[in-house]
């Protein structure tokens, strides 16, 4: 299954390469993240700061997006490191609509224990709306896991999530900012993890 998905991903990528020149955008940001973990026996709520970066490359109607972030989430009794990332390939079906496909993963690292990693292959849809032309737009993104897994305990996983927010662009400057709220939930047979985040990202478009 993963091999097939990888082939589709590479197929999209090669098609994208056949299009016109690339437009690339980079961003860095951070945000407050809250993770709620539930298993048959435990419930845990941790929160903290996660910092990260992203790169978005556009060529014709095809888009690729890479995001990575890491930080530490804690509560009064425990703390974990968290690392998360995604690699998506998208297609701009309409000027205001992009469909995405690709993997994303989140790993919780607890000292003295093996890592707990969620991996999802998901399909996504992003819709955008213009508030002030060329300056401010809103977006809502929904995703649904197609296939996924949890490494510890080893079991298959499902999930879904949403992100919505506001993107601002400065006039005559290749700089943009994004304020977003994100919520995701991943579910295994014995464990369920919900992550909320409010992020602020600042980016620039060097090649536009």
């Amino acid at each position, binding site marked *: 299954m993963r091999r097939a998905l990888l082939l589709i991903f590479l197929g999209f990528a090669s098609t994208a390469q056949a299009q016109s020149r690339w437009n690339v955008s980079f961003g860095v940001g951070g945000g407050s993240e809250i993770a709620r973990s539930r298993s048959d026996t435990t419930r845990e709520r941790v929160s903290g700061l996660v910092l990260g970066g992203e790169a978005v490359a556009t060529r014709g109607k095809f888009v690729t997006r890479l995001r990575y972030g890491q930080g530490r989430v804690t509560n009064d009794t425990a703390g974990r490191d968290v690392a998360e990332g995604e690699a998506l390939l998208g297609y701009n079906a309409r000027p205001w609509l992009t469909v995405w496909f690709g993997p994303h993963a989140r790993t919780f690292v607890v000292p003295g224990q093996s890592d707990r990693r969620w991996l999802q292959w998901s399909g996504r849809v992003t819709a955008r709306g213009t508030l002030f032309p060329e300056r401010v737009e*809103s977006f809502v993104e929904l995703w649904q896991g197609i296939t996924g897994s949890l490494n510890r305990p080893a079991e298959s996983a499902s999930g879904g999530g949403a992100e919505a927010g506001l993107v601002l662009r400065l006039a005559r400057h290749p700089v943009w900012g994004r304020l977003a709220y994100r919520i995701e939930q991943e579910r295994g047979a014995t464990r369920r993890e919900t992550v909320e985040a409010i992020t602020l990202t600042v980016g620039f478009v060097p090649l536009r």
Partner: protein
Amino acid sequence: MTHARSFLVLLVALLLLAAPGAASAQSAAAVLAQGARAYDDLELDNAAGLLRRALAVQGADALAPRDASRALMYLAATELLREHADSARAVARRLVLADPRFRPDELVFPPQVLTFYEGVRRATPVVIARAPADTAIRPGAEALAVRLYASTFHEVTATLGTEAGRVVRMLYAGPIGDSLDLHWNGLDSSGTASPPNGRYAITVTSLDRQRRIVRILRLPLEVTQGRVDTLPHPGPPADSLLLPERQPMGPGLKALAPGALAGVAIAVLPSVVANGEDASAARFVVGGSLTIAGIAAFVSHHPGKSIPANVAHNRALRDAWRREDALVASRNAERARGMIGIRVGAPVLLTPEAP
């Protein structure tokens, strides 16, 4: 062979059926020619019969007015030569009444006939009238001209009256020789105003030497005030030419919607994506920001605000239309001022008593 014979019989039958129409179509003029030849050959009884037959044809196949006058003249001459003087006089009188201007050909008819006809014509005072069928005049400044043609010199009176017989205006009283032009200037007897819309008639009364009424010609008129062709008024400016005078709501709502919907989505999505979890209230910071941004975008479009440039553009268009409309209205008023339309009907000749 049998089929060929049947076809011939059918063809002949069809020709016989069609023949009477064609024969009658030709017969009036042809019979007149035969009657004229019979008269020339002094076959007077035959000529009288043929000429009466020609005159009896009615409808589309009837003799043309000019030929009818010739037929009556031949018939009068025939009856006179047959020594049917009364019949000849009646026919000649009929000719005078129908065509007062008719004069017999001196190369065709003998002096006896010419003298006889001249006597009847002089003894039969009558007029006919010619007038334009439809005209418009400016009362007081222009006039309706009606030309009268007389059979002989005699006295006439001409009046304009209502259908009921009330005299509106005296037009003429006096002698008429060969012809006379009557003029009506469109005014009533007061000389200051035109009569109201309605049906009228010019009545020309022919008098004999004892001033007895021998003939009355009625020429019906229909008078209409201000009946003139007018210029069409220009239509108002088409909607496609007018620009919106106020900022529409649409663009404002279009800008508001993405912000408001995304704000609502942030409030609602946690219960969809992570049902059973208590989502953080901090998300409303983002949702509120989106909603405020949407409202700001809506306000930035100034929905309902007047657009001065478009207002001025539309005002210029409307003013130009009003000016043109007023100009057409004044031109039409100028055209119609005091004008009356006159429609002339077919004249009717009445003979109150035999002269």
